[in-house]
Structure formats: C-alpha cells, structure tokens
C-alpha cells in the first residue's frame, strides 16, 4: 500500500473536518511502512514487514479536549471518529494547560524522503545482510546485526487553517562481530535517509577489525583518564543534554539548568567555549521534519553557542505563561566539529583511552546530569600517539556537562546513530581529560 500524496491526505482530512461540530478540531494522519531483517550467529533469525496507518482526531470545547483514532477511512468511519472525539471532549475534565490549536504556519519543504529507501525489497535487505555475512566468514568472526528501513507520511490539518505534510525515509544498520573464542567484540552503526549511502560491507569490516583488535584485553586500574570518544560514544552522553533542555523543569528548579533562588542558567556559560550545538531540519547531511507534532515549525536554532546556553525548549502552554517564543524540542542535534580525524586525535595523545562505544546509559543524578554506563565492543589504551593494546571494559560515572568542561579537542563531525535512543546526530569525536571510570567489567 502506497503512502498518500499531499493532495490525497489533504482531501481526506478536509472531509474529516467537515464532520466537526466542536469549537476546535485538529486531525493528524500518519502512515508508515517498515521492513527489517535480523541476523545472529551468522544466520538470519527474524525478518518482517508491517504497514499501519492511523487517523487521530482531537476535538475541543473551551479547555475540554478529547482525542479519538481510527484506521478505517470510509466516510462512516471518518464521521464516527469525529463524533467519538467530541463525546470524549464533553466528558473530559478541564485542562487549564490546554492552549487550543495553532493557526496556519509556513514550513520549508523537508528533504527527508528518498524514493530508493521507500522501495527497498526483501531481496535487497537479504543482499545487504549477505554482504555483512561474507565479511564475517572472511574474518572468521561471528556476526549479529539488524537492518531496518522505513517510509512514513505525516500530515495534519485543523479548524484554524493549519495544514502540514511531510514524508520521510530512514535506514539504520548495526552490526556486532565477535571472535570465535568470544574474547573480542567490535561494533559499527550507520543511519541514513538514503539507502544507497548504506554500505553494510564497510560497516561490517570496521566491526570485524575492532573485534580482532579488541581480543585478549588487559585490565588497567579504574580512575580518571583522558579519553577519546568516537562519535557513537559521544552521542549517547550528549543526547542527555538535548533531552533535558525543557524550560519548565529549569524554571521549576528541577533541572541541571536550574539555579538557587528560582532562576535558570539560560544565557550563562556552562561548558567549554569551543562547544557549539544546534539543530537544523534542512541540514544536507541529516534532514529532519520541518514541523513537530503540534504543528510548530522546526527551524534552525542554536542550543549552546560558545559554551553558553542560548535557548531552551518550551511547551506552548509554558511559553505563553512566560511570554516567550514556544520553541519545540528538536528532532535531532548537531555539534560543530573541528578538522582533525579520529586518527589525528589519537596521534596527538600522550596517554589515554579510545572509547568506541558506550552501553546501558542511565541517569544517576538529574541535578548534575550524572550518568553511568559501560564501555563496550572495543576499548583501547593509547600511549605516545598510538593504540598500544585493548583494555577490559570499564563502568563510568560522569556528567556530560563536566565532560564538556574538560574538553581537550574536537574532531571532524560524522553522522552517527545513538545506540540508546536510535536517534541520528551529527557529532564529532571528542577528546576529554579526567573522564571518571569507577570499576572494571569482565564483559566482552
């Protein structure tokens, strides 16, 4: 089943709105087609394909709001879902924080849809996995991996005249290669909108090389070390900053951005002045949607500029209460990089540890943004500008805020995927001093 075109989606939503008798009505229409293939122990394990579409109708009377949904699109079903949302709205308690639907907005045309990705077949998926399995065979490694592609359509329309439409595609691939003796393990992850950019062979070769090089790791004492974080490792720490930019939590005094006396750190320098973090839905290397779920435009915006917190995210209610612009949370984030490659960062390091991946990241203290987690799938000791030997995995306890104050160098930006949230980011490798490893792990 094909995704609806803009005209088809708008025609359907106009029909839905024509049934509305509420003071305000808003319609969201979403369809997605997902395919995946999973393999382990050098063989395909599971694989599947799903298609689903949903129409969400929100009706409101004053501050009473009701939502209903349906996945059948004949006229009777469309009218039924509108009536049901209206009944729910009449029954609902008033929500003093309900601010009504948004009026018409102007959006840029998103660059998120790539036809080749939407057309991926089961054979193509199997072929891409076959390339990875061939690397495993050649390297005498044991491969486990996952390839997932999706195509989606999102559209919305409301009784105030707002109309929005977007289509997009994504493909993510991750692979773990382990040595036959289970003493070495390597990993690679890649994400793109365009499947033709996905090179499962190259990613698998990187994972296999890390597996071989990480085997028979030595234990070194936990403590504070200079680390070089590959982009995938940096991303899972940094995204905890991106997820916690909510202005309301900061204003209420329960965020790492809160200050004594009820003020916030907005406008203050919080990290090293070389740190610049922003989001941009039109970035050519990582396009994202140009509007968010409640219809607000997603624009290029700076979050941290020269180490200073420049903007926070707001719900429409909180922005109205504070009399500021309601900046939505971004779909992704970009940290500005430098010019050095990972290899150059290693070459300039007297003593340090190369961290290729971090795992099981959890918040320990929201006040300081302290996180814990472990290194995984390839951790290496660096001395005199060279990787000397693989080391056993560590548990760390560290805050990304402290980490960005201990910044030594920033490398060249890469598109990477968070192994925790599955979000795509543009993140450079980072060299950081005094990174806190608190204990050793026997895990490979």
């Amino acid at each position, binding site marked *: 089943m094909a995704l609806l075109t803009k005209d088809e989606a708008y025609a359907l939503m106009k029909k839905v709105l024509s049934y509305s008798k509420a003071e305000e009505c808003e319609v969201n229409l979403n369809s997605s087609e997902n395919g995946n293939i999973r393999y382990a122990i050098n063989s395909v394990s599971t694989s599947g*394909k799903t298609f689903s579409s949903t129409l969400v109708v929100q009706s409101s009377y004053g501050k009473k709001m009701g939502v209903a949904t349906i996945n059948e699109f004949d006229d009777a079903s469309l009218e039924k879902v509108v009536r049901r949302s209206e009944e729910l709205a009449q029954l609902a308690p008033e929500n003093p924080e309900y601010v009504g639907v948004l009026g018409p907005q102007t959006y840029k045309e998103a660059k998120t849809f790539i036809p080749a990705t939407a057309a991926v077949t089961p054979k193509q998926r199997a072929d891409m996995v076959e390339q990875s399995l061939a690397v495993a065979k050649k390297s005498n490694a044991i491969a486990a991996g996952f390839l997932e592609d999706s195509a989606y359509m999102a559209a919305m329309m409301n009784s105030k005249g707002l109309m929005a439409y977007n289509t997009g595609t994504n493909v993510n691939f991750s692979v773990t290669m382990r040595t036959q003796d289970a003493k070495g393990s390597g990993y690679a992850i890649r994400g793109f909108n365009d499947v033709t950019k996905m090179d499962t062979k190259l990613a698998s070769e990187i994972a296999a090389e890390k597996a071989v090089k990480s085997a028979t790791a030595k234990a070194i004492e936990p403590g504070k070390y200079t680390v070089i974080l590959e982009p995938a490792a940096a991303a899972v720490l940094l995204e905890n900053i991106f997820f916690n930019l909510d202005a309301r939590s900061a204003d209420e005094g329960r965020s790492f951005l809160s200050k004594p006396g009820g003020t916030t750190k907005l406008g203050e320098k919080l990290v090293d002045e070389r740190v610049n973090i922003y989001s941009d839905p039109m970035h050519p290397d990582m396009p994202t949607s140009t509007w968010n779920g409640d219809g607000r435009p997603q624009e290029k915006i700076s979050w941290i500029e020269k180490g200073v917190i420049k903007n926070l995210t707001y719900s429409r209610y909180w922005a109205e209460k504070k009399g500021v612009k309601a900046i939505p949370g971004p779909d992704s984030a970009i940290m500005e990089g430098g010019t050095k490659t990972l290899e150059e960062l290693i070459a300039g390091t007297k003593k340090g540890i190369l961290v290729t991946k971090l795992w099981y990241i959890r918040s*320990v203290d929201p006040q300081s943004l302290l996180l814990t987690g472990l290194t995984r799938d390839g951790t290496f000791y660096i001395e005199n500008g060279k990787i000397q030997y693989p080391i056993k995995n560590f548990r760390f306890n560290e805050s990304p805020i402290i980490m960005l104050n201990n910044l030594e160098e920033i490398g060249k930006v890469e598109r990477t995927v968070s192994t925790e949230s599955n979000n795509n980011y543009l993140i450079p490798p980072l060299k950081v001093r005094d990174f806190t490893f608190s204990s050793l792990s026997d895990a490979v």
Partner: protein
Amino acid sequence: MGAAATMLPAIPIVGSPISPERALEAVDPAMKKRLADVALNAGRSRGATYVDVRIGRYLNQFVVTREEKVQNIVNTESFGLGVRVIANGSWGFAATDKLDNDSVAKAAEAAVAIAKENSRLQTKPVQLAPQKGHGEVSWKAPIAKNAFEVPIKEKVDLLLNVNSEAMKAGANYITSLLFLVNEQKYFASTDGSYIDQDIHRIWPAFFITKIDAASGKFETRNSLSAPMGMGYEYLDWRPQDKINSVTTLYKGRYDMLEDAKAGGRQAGEKITAKSVDAGKYDLVLDPSHLWLTIHESVGHPTELDRVLGYEANFAGTSFLTLDKWQSKKFNFGNNLVNIVADKTQVGSLGAVGYDDEGVQCGKWDLIKDGVLVNYQTIRDQAHILGLNASQGCCYADNWSSVQFQRMPNVSLQPGKEKKSVDDLIKGVEKGIYIVGDGSFSIDQQRYNFQFGGQLFYEIKNGKIDGMLKDVAYQSNTQEFWNACGGMADESDYRLGGAFGDGKGQPPQSNAVSHGSSTTRFNGVNVINTARKI
C-alpha cells in the same frame, strides 16, 4: 536492556486513542478463528511447513495528573494480526491492521515470501520442539475488578487526592498516574491450537520532587508500588497488606494515599540527609528494590537466546555460558540462593495460560542451592538443552511484533527458617537498608552492575541510624550472589516488577514480576554519587 518501567518518560504509548466504552466491547472469538484459519490456510498453500497467527487487541488506559491538574486521559487500542511461518526451514513474519480475508491472506503470503528469500542465508533449518495442539481453549487472568470498568472520575479523584496529600506533606511537585493494560490475545497454529486469552495489568505510580530554594538542590521520591498482573483490586488495600518498617511497605495491595504522604515527607528528609561515605557496606535490600537487581543480574543472563548469541548485537550475550550449566557445579550464588522461573504465579505480570507459540506455561528452577541448573527457552531452542518441550517463554508485545524469547517471572525464594527483617538488620554492624528502585545499569554479559534506590537508611551496630543520600552500589553478579547473607522468611515475600522491559531489534516491551523477601548481602561496594557542575 533493562527495566524502563522506573522512568516516567520511558512509558511506551502503544496503540491508538479510543473511548473508554470501546475498551469494554468484546471481540467475537468466532471472528478471530475465521481470520486465523484464513492466515493458516494461506501460509500453508504457499508452502509453509508451519504457520502461527496471533490476533491481538491491546488496550491501554493512561490517566496522568500533576499537582491539582489532570494532564492527560488517553485510551488506546491496537488491533491487528501477525502471522509467522516456517518456509524452506527459515522464519518469516508479516503483520497487518486490515482484518479482511484478502489483507490477512496477503500478510501470510508476504511472510512466506520473506522466509523463502531469507532461507538462502540460513545455516541450519529451524528446529521446533514438538507441541501438541490444544484445540479451542481459553484463559483469563483471575482479576476481581476490571480496571477498565472503573469510572475515569474515580481514578482522577484518587490521583488528585494523592497529589494533594503529597503536597501537604511537603512535596513541591508531583506527577501521578494510572497505567492500565488489557491484552486480548488469540493464538492459532497449524499444530491445532486456538487459544483465546485475557490478560490484565495495572501500574499506579507517582514521582515527587522536593526543592530547597535556598541551595537550589532537589531530591525525588518515587512511589513504592509494584506494577501487577491484577485488576483495580490492587488499590483496594487491607490492613493485612501493610508491613510496618521505616516506611510502610505493601504486599499484594497498595495504599497510594498513604505512600504519597510518606513520599512528600521523605523527599524533604532526603534534602537534609547525610551524604554517604563511600566504602564497603552490608546491604539489606527490600523486595521493592531487590526485584530490579534480580531482573538484571539473574533474569537476563539466564535467557537462552542471549547465552547462544541471538541478542549479541543489542542486549548482549551472557556470562552464564552453556559449559557452566553443563558442569552442574557453577556457583552462581551461595547455597542460600534458590531462584525459580514461573509463568503461573497469581497476580504476577508474567502469568498467562499459554505463551505466544501455544505452549502451556509452568514453573522451573533456574538456580538451585546456588548452582545454575536451567535457562529460559522457546520452541526453536529447546533441543539445544536436550529438552523435548519448550518452557513457554515466547512473547510478542504487539500483533505487529514477531514473538521471541522473553523473561518469565524470575524470583528469589524466601528463607526456610523463620526470620524477620528486624532479625536481618540486628546482625549488621555497618550497613545500608535500601527501599525502592532507582538508577540501574549492567554490562552486556551481566557481570558488572550499579544500582541506586529510593530510600537509604544507615545501619549501625544492628540499628537503623538515620537517612543517607547519594548512594549507589556496584558489584559483580557472581560475587554479589555469593555474598548473600540470608533472607527473611516467606511472610515477607513480595513482588516487584518491570512494566516495560526492553529487548530485541526492533525493541519490544515485556512485563515481568520478580519476588523476594528482604535479603542481606555482605561487603558490597558503595559509591557516593554527588557531583557539582
């Protein structure tokens, strides 16, 4: 991955919003059987040697409030069909939310096509443990009060009262919620099973924040409730369901108002509590805390799919390799440690009559007198352990997800001798008594872990000596369970649990309970988590 249940932002909102009344409408089993037969026949006619079909209706209700406001009331329904086949010795799966004969047949055909395409990459054909057909059978969770039948107003009133009591007791902010689940699952397979099941779950929870304006410090205190495989009766507490301790603890039923009052007060106490001195302590762990340590350090490493390498790319593998099991003498813990897997425990999150490949559920030992004796398996793994039947651990979180090996309830058995929590504390010279679950993290083979908690009390010379904060403990799974210093008896046994345990690619959520009595662990490494930014 671990139990996402403890983190509010991690609540998965699966499904589409519907009216509360619609959740009470039943789906005719005859219609489900007809559709199932369409899928079974379509799969077979395309060359599948085995087909199973799951028709799932997944109902959720969320009622979310903060302070004096209702934030959200959402009813969702997800209804559709997933069909899994073996063709050319390989698995294939497809799913659809269009429940007409044509769409269902097409889904079955797509599953066969995928299986055939993938079979060229298969090294060994899938080998299923034998399973007899059960014919047309049904199973219903033994609930006393269907939570979906309780009026929304009653739920809203409860939560707003909870918030009010917490605020009166000193909380600055509170979010409270009720998360209700009803899984109506129909399973059919070419083995001749047609199984209709009705499963209910409930999770009442709150999250309190206390702020010290002058210092800018804040502390949180989460509810001590457990998500349960129960109806609304979980909130109808009785005096016999309460255990008096440093704070009231709850056994099988929950007094949310009382816990909110205590929570408001304790969040304030945490602000001024002593910051822990890092070092070795004997830990006395309440079941409201210990469930999560059991989940991460016992539940996950005994999953056979992890042991074999099927989860190597995401959740990881396991240190409990087959050679350790084959040796019959691997000391997972000391001889006080007995841990069972159980898919039948009444009131637990994991209880069902049959798993998602039509296997009748049961109970078995995982760790017996400290020794690793078994794992958790499904039909295509049973032969690896020399078993001629699956242990019934197959589960999919939705009709659109493919079923795979998921954790049953995994529980630490209580002590055989009569012993109270006070008896345990009396024997501790330098220790910490921990109540409630907090931060959690463990490595990909389940050796090294770190856990926080909700409430920490210092034990000095056999007595509780005030509250501590900034506490987390780190250990190695085998060392930890070999440091077990005894547990309270059966009268203290309680369930905790995870509402949304994540595993798999794409990730799927599983609900599972873990029981224990309060248990002591000797000489565990405690770190101080306070930092300045």
